[in-house]
């Protein structure tokens, strides 16, 4: 289990004492925490902010996830604060295990997201947010040996999301499209940039159906750059998320991560738990 800095934790608790009975949104609509700590699906940051806060309240959430594929696994834990459903602050720690080499790569990510306009459920236009993820790779040797230029980088993304009530035969349909400016190789775990940098804007898409108030079934796709010329693949997953109440969610996904560090056919499972205050 990753350790979250106590100071940050203290800050969140202090914020929380202000007003933390945030239960303003409809169950499941804020989504979960993605692997880089932002509110979203499993791999894509969404326009909605983490947690159930609305304009009048603050919410705090935490999540831990594990992805296990043939030759790798990724553990990640994150904390989010949602301030008045306007600003989301997040912090995530990732631990990437390269099983064949018995090697661990570690990265920390500080994120922020601001809701520009729109409301996921109630406006006719989609909810649109602008976000950043500032990443610092702690273990840079492998990244540099593979040709990465830097051990730190910042992704900037713009995301649009909409929940259409009753859209699919009475079932609610959610979609999200995110455009991300990034130089991150495998999220940044293999550093940033490289000799084969080309186009830097990557597209990410999610689509989900709420089967009932507590269950969401969806798919995600995340385009990724191949700066290191290792055949870095786009990611995709199919997920089911369970929201028993406004304090807990559990997400299970089947993921296809393609080729990682030139090792092909990395498919496996993703399990994530999120707690909401």
């Amino acid at each position, binding site marked *: 289990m990753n350790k979250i800095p106590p100071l940050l934790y203290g800050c969140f608790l202090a914020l929380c004492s202000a007003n933390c009975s945030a239960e303003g949104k409809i169950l499941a609509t804020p989504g979960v925490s993605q692997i880089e700590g932002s509110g979203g699906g499993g791999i894509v940051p969404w326009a909605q902010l983490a947690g159930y806060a609305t304009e009048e309240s603050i919410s705090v959430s935490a999540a831990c996830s594990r992805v296990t594929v043939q030759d790798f696994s990724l553990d990640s834990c994150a904390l989010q604060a949602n301030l008045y459903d306007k600003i989301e602050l997040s912090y995530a720690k990732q631990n990437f295990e390269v099983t064949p080499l018995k090697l661990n790569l570690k990265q920390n990510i500080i994120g922020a997201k601001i809701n520009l306009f729109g409301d996921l459920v109630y406006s006719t236009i989609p909810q649109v947010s602008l976000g950043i993820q500032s990443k610092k790779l702690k273990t840079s040797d492998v990244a540099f040996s593979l040709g990465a230029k830097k051990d730190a980088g910042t992704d900037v993304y713009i995301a649009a999301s909409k929940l259409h009530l009753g859209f*699919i*035969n009475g*079932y609610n349909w959610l979609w999200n499209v995110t455009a991300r400016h990034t130089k991150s190789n495998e999220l940044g775990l293999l550093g940033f940039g490289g000799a084969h940098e080309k186009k830097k804007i990557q597209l990410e*898409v999610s689509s989900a*159906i709420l089967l009932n*108030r507590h269950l969401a079934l969806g798919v995600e*796709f995340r385009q990724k750059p191949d700066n290191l010329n290792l055949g870095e693949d786009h990611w*995709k997953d199919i997920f089911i998320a369970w929201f028993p109440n406004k304090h807990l969610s559990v997400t299970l996904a089947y993921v296809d991560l393609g080729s990682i560090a030139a090792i092909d056919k990395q498919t496996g499972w993703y399990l994530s738990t999120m707690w909401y205050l």
Partner: protein
Amino acid sequence: MKTGIANMKKSIILMLLMSCLACSSPSGNIDSHINSHNSEQTQPSLYEKMGGKPALDNIIDNLINIIGQDDVVFAHFAQSNVTRFKDQLTVFLCHLADGPCQYKGDSMEDIHQGMYINKNEFNHFVELFIEAMDAADISYPIQNLLLARLAPLRKTIIKM
């Protein structure tokens, strides 16, 4: 690169398929095809699908009971005439669900003017309404269809 594009295509197809569940809606397109040579006979209204007047009365009775026990929104209703509220809301929802009623009462803006309802209170009320529909055994898809018609009203209700 080629496999990347192929994979991307596959994912896009999968997503389109998911969104296309809408196209294969049994109570949507198929019914309207069957009925198309019988042009005047349209599919049942949302009001009929939810169970008509008995269901609506049931929802509203439940809602009034729930509001009466709720700390957050009760204050907004404390001054209301319950009988009038009930009658007006019945006609309003019946009209909204394409039932055989014509709502001629005050606009949502006029009713909520000066109440300073915030988003938390509004969303909380939506949840109470869902609770009332649950207690009336309204199915999840029908609840969503009714909520879809109520959702656009939020801008006329909050912070007036």
